């Protein structure tokens, strides 16, 4: 063991398989590797975002259009048509349901789109992996970051519109939570992204199966519904299970930020306790994902 390690330090590349210890070590070193390649990463994210709208007349305006439209629809649908009104709302918070749905949908999409697109990213970039030696961990991170950026643009649009049109009180100190929530969300999303992207190299059914899983997961997450007895009386016995869903905590945290935890009926917990519940998921997902990825990544070039 010591002999091989010493040999490796002197620059030998050998056929020794990657063991669990090596994989765990590389999982600790990964953030540094990614940071060293940040220029490549940024360029990749930019290209990823740019490619979606390249050749369109509106170009960079498009990413702003979709959250605006989305918000308009949610606001209109859930506040005006379905008349989801909560008891004891301030007059200035009449749009609460619309904001609730919108923020939840953005948080969900930011996560789900990253994982879903990551599942195929290694296979799609097969030629790159075969021809160039670079850390393949960058590829899933690129799509995860791209979808997170889309999500943040959505939040930004919301914040500006809410302030300018003054239909929703500006968020307060809760904004300070954003870096924490974002970091945990990225760790969780990236962990799952690493896992599914690696698995899909060997079993192409993973990507197909994943879209089904994501659909079920979305409905199990309170994106378009409110998991409180006051709104859904029948929810009672299911609540402990629903609250164990990491995405429940994530959506909850984002909502608490943008809605300043009001109306109180929708926020039975504190933002800190939700993040405390989410943090182990985030760390766990990252460790499992990065370790599994490190165990099999050597074979990518042969299998894609």
């Amino acid at each position, binding site marked *: 063991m010591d002999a091989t390690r010493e040999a490796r330090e002197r620059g030998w*590349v050998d*056929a020794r398989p990657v063991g669990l210890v090596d994989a765990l070590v590389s999982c600790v070193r990964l953030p540094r590797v990614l940071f060293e*390649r940040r*220029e490549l990463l940024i360029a990749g994210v930019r290209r990823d975002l740019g490619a979606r709208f390249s050749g369109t007349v509106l170009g960079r305006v498009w990413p702003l259009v979709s959250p605006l439209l989305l918000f308009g629809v949610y606001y209109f649908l859930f506040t005006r048509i379905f008349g989801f009104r909560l008891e004891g709302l301030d007059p200035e918070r009449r749009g609460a349901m619309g904001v609730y749905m919108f923020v939840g949908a953005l948080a969900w999409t930011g996560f789900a789109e990253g994982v879903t697109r990551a599942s195929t990213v290694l296979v799609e970039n097969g*030629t790159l992996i*075969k021809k160039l*030696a*670079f850390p393949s961990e960058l590829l899933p991170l690129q799509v995860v970051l791209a979808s997170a950026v889309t999500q943040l643009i959505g939040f930004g649009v919301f914040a500006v519109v809410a302030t300018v049109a003054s239909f929703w009180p500006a968020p307060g100190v809760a904004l300070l939570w954003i870096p924490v929530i974002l970091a945990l969300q990225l760790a969780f999303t990236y962990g799952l992204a690493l896992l599914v992207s690696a698995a899909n190299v*060997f079993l192409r059914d993973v990507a197909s199966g994943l879209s089904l899983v994501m659909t079920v997961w979305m409905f199990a997450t309170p994106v378009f519904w409110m998991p409180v007895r006051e709104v859904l009386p029948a929810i009672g016995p299911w609540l402990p299970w629903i609250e164990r869903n990491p995405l429940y905590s994530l959506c909850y945290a984002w909502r608490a930020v943008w809605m300043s935890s009001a109306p109180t009926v929708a926020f039975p917990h504190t933002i800190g306790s939700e993040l405390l519940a989410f943090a182990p998921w985030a760390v766990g997902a990252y460790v499992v994902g990065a370790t599994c990825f490190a165990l099999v990544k050597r074979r990518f070039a042969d299998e894609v």
Partner: protein
Amino acid sequence: MDGAALEVEGLGKAYRRYDRAFDRALEFLTLGNAKRHREFWALRDASFTVARGEAFGIVGGNGAGKSTLLKLLAGTTHPSAGRFRLNGRLGALLELGAGFHLDLSGRENLALAGALMGLSRSEIRAKEAEILEFAEIGEFVDAPVRTYSTGMAVRLSFALATAIDPDVLIIDEVLAVGDVYFQKKCVDRVLDFKRSGKTILLCSHSLYDVRNLCERALWLDHGRVSGLGDATAVTNDYATFEREHAGADASSTPRPGLPRVLAARIRRRRDGVEVHEIEAGESIDIGVWWENPEPTRHALQLGIGFLRQDRTLVSAAATHVDGASFDARSGSATLELEQLPLLAGQFTVLVVLFDGDGVHRHHEYALDRPLTVRARTKELGLVRVPHRWRFAPLEAPPKR
């Protein structure tokens, strides 16, 4: 081994082959406990050392393991056996245009590919002017790579790979593309590299390039080392071996009732022995036997040519060109070739029976084994043109 740029010890690579996608899934789901693959060794037991500043050639047929070896060294795939060590920064030109995005401009691609190779943005920017100057793509630099000609894309990636100033440069079949002018430029740059003490690994189908640029060479066959040593000796051995592959498919199928070649043989003039291998400059005679079922209907012309392996006709003799008339009945002929001026290489010998005008071809017959010419000298080119040198001091500038 301090002077070594590359040390390879027992290196091997096995690819896994699965008969069905299901097998791969099963093996994956059982975490490799259910072995459902067959191993295919693309490279096995390769051991060699390349000294710093040496140019080292790698030759072999398709599927011999050359690309696998280079991929292992470049780090895009990992060894299944053995080990290797590279000392210094590696520049790999595995495939031209690899990593180029067709929709991005040349300049953007440069930044991207450079970043993939591990260069920082400022490093790339510092090299940009030099790269663009070498690549000579002019105003196309800001146009999408989609609009580039093959030559332009090739130039850009060659310029990039060599501009990063690697200590060890891996070149895979690159010198064969692009126009002659650019090929020369590439070769010049490779020679510059060599002169500045860098190490070069050159993988090429062109035995000429290997012989010309490299001191030593490795010959791979079916994943194993078949030869290792002096570049001229190894490429000659390889050329000799390769004769089994060439030639046979150059023949056409004779049609019933039409004239056909029955046989053809090459004999060495000095002892009359039938040969498939000669020294450059030897005299040979090529004998041809044919039959013509209906001499009254089908007049004949006879041609004998030497083809290079890429099917380029190097030289040919034909009766209708030479004005040599002969009887159209079944018979035989001998072509006498004095001091054959072909230089080292392998040549398919093709015998053609034409109609009387020398236009329509009745039958093309390639000798089942190509003619291998071995050169004792390092003369360059395909043929030896008789020549001599004269020198004189400069008295006046040359007049037009």
